[in-house]
């Protein structure tokens, strides 16, 4: 078997005596492709994220049907959850466009959040819907114990017909050996079912995943545009500082990205500078805002209830 493979490689090697630059590149390319084929990566599907520099660092795009690790301080902010939500929207859009070709329509998404302790909080449908992700797609697996959650992961990923599986591993103290085995098992299951898996949690020394990211909120303000632009709703659109620490077949990347909800795609944030913490806070609501009218003291009379509900109980001064 080995002999035939070597012969196979040898047959692809061009004539060695007059090696110039072009043939050398071709030779390396063929060899790489062949190794990838032996590695079982020939049917690799990928989804471009829409940011050119990031896509080239990912060797064409985010590999589907693989395990990706998105690390960050899950309990201090929701940047990782936000980034993975936007990634899911991108994935759903990608599948709906290429669904027929890939013979795979968008299925449900299983999310195993660590909402029990610490403070990451439960997924909130209104916020996800405002971001653009339909909460009806989510099947939430809510287990406080991270070890049981991760033990169930293999079973979930093996299921056919899921679009993506997101698992948060926060709070699990295991050896790197354990992680390696878990990663390998999950990777095999993901390849079998063609489900894309995202593992979210604090940075750990784990290997075996397709890509490893570090996601932090982007502490940026747009100095170029000036204060007036800050009050625009765009200034609240999600922005992250992305570090691609490892990507199979790709290279490291560091940059800033945002999410354009209207267009449903990632945007590169250039021209932004880190915020100066010494400067005065910028408020988009006027500090001397409108005097808040005194709400009428609620009387439990049935006739005034609808009026009450409509006007004075729920008002927004934004």
């Amino acid at each position: 078997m080995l002999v035939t493979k070597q012969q196979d490689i040898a047959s692809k090697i061009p004539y060695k005596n007059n090696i110039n630059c072009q043939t050398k590149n071709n030779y390396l390319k063929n060899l790489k492709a062949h190794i990838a084929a032996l590695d079982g990566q020939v049917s690799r599907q990928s989804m471009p994220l829409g940011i050119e520099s990031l896509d080239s660092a990912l060797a064409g795009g985010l590999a589907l049907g693989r395990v990706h690790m998105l690390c960050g301080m899950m309990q201090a902010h929701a940047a990782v959850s936000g980034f993975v939500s936007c990634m899911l929207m991108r994935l759903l859009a990608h599948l709906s466009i290429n669904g027929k070709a890939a013979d795979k329509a968008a299925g449900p998404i299983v999310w195993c959040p660590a909402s029990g302790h610490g403070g990451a909080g439960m997924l909130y449908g209104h916020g996800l819907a405002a971001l653009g992700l339909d909460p009806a797609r989510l099947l939430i697996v809510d287990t406080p114990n991270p070890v049981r959650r991760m033990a169930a992961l293999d079973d979930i990923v093996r299921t056919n017909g899921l679009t993506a599986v997101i698992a948060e591993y926060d709070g699990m103290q295991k050896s790197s050996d354990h992680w390696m085995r878990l990663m390998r098992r999950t990777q095999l299951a993901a390849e079998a079912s063609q489900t894309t898996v995202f593992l979210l949690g604090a940075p750990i020394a784990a290997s075996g995943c397709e890509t490893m990211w570090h996601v932090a909120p982007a502490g940026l303000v747009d100095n170029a545009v000036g204060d007036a632009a800050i009050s625009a709703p765009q200034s609240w659109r999600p922005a992250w500082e992305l570090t691609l620490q490892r990507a199979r077949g790709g290279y490291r990347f560091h940059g800033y990205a945002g999410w354009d909800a209207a267009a449903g795609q990632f945007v590169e944030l250039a021209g932004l500078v880190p915020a100066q913490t010494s400067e005065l806070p910028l408020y988009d609501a006027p500090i001397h805002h409108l005097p808040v009218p005194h709400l009428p003291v609620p009387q439990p009379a049935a006739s005034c209830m609808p009026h009450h509900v409509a006007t004075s109980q729920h008002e927004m001064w934004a």
Partner: protein
Amino acid sequence: MAATYRHIIYIHFPYLAAARIRRNTAVTRHPMVFVQPVNGGDRVAACCPLAARYGLAVGMRLADARALCPTLQTHSYDAAADRADLRHLALWARRYSPLTASDECANGIWIDVAGAEHLFGDGRSLMADCARRLRQAGLRVRMAAATTCGAAWGLAHYARRPVSCCSHDKDMRQKLSALPLAALRIEPSVIAALQRAGLHMIGDIMTMPRAPLTARFGDHLLRRLDQAYGDVQESFCPIEPVQPLIVQRNFSEPIAAPSDVAAMVAYLADEMARLLYHSGMAARRLELGWQRVDSGCGHKYIHLSRPSRERDLLHRLLAGVGDGINPEFGIETAWMQAHECSPLTPVTQPLRHMAAPTDAADAESYANLIDRLVARLGYGAVLHIQPLASWQPEAAQKTVLPDPANRPIKNPAKWLGSGHDITAPPRPIRLLAHPHPIDVVALLPDHPPAQFIWQRRIHKIIKATGPERIAPLWWVAPAGTKSRDYFRVQDDNGARFWLYRDGLPERGETAAWFLHGFFA
């Protein structure tokens, strides 16, 4: 004459509904009636013995009943519960004979005890035993034994004595003649017409020529008469009990080793799958039970998201169950019973969620996944989220169990901000179940915060929007619940938070600050 010997007992329960109420709630000394709207007015559908003593009767208007008895308690009449009780009683009566039936129209049960009397001595002692047991259960009974269904029915309802027994055919004919016409199970309009003609008793029409009666009232009257006297055969359709689907395993030696317990569970799963297959049924709930040598029993339930009988599925669901069984000194008997069974239908539309995959095979494996996760992680661990129409952030989302019978909601609430509604108020993507208290520095009491301390870290705020004022649900919230002013803030690291001030300073309320959620 009847062609074969028959011995029919009819038991009438005049106060079945009242007995159910007395059984389930504390005993009151007030008369009670059960009312049912008939033709736009409330009428008495059933009453209790005490109310009957006041002169109340079935069919009376509620207003008349109240006039007779001012301390009357009224309940709404539950016909379905009566039917279920009668069915239970008919099943219970199978201890006397395999042929029993419930008479739902007249609150009674039939028992055909022909050939079974000797097991209890004779017919009279059988009836005495039956009456004693029913009275001990708190039921008032009227019962009669006769050679025909019709005679037993009439005697039980209208005989003077609560227990009547016809020793022979002549005796039965005599007793029947003395009964009112209603004992023939004929329509009230026919009874009224006969009474206008001066005919009140069954004996009165027995002597009448038959042809004019048939011409005037149709053949129903005479057929009932013949049925009562046994000139026309009448039978009832006996009730058929549902056989429980149960498999059992007894061990010659008590088992305690974990491997043996696992093998026991696997064996029961195998047998159950085979039993379900042969009976053509699928179960939604399985009960695994075991008995230890010290007679202690235990059981576990395994829920399925839809009826199933697949052997592999049962094996997977039961895979971890054996570990949770504590055999102590050993298990000597184990059984598995299928509940909520239904005839198996192929999966055509397994889950009506939007989340469910469109492909049938994928939908099946998705449903199986839900089953496995529920079996593995517990019943409340697998959820869907649904919007609720409430402006209280914590009440605006509910979690529901994924269920195949998830019917579409009538007026579904919408997610705020869905469809890129930029006018919607901002909502975080993760919400804390219990808001965390934070220390806040603000320029003035009603200003947005300038910085806050959470988890011993200082977050300097560079951007803030707000306030969005959310008042409590004043008609349900306890007194003293304050309005909240919500702010969306961003700290110098770029993290976005949803903070609120509990209490309005401009109203003179003391304010406290909380962190409630995180934005993307």
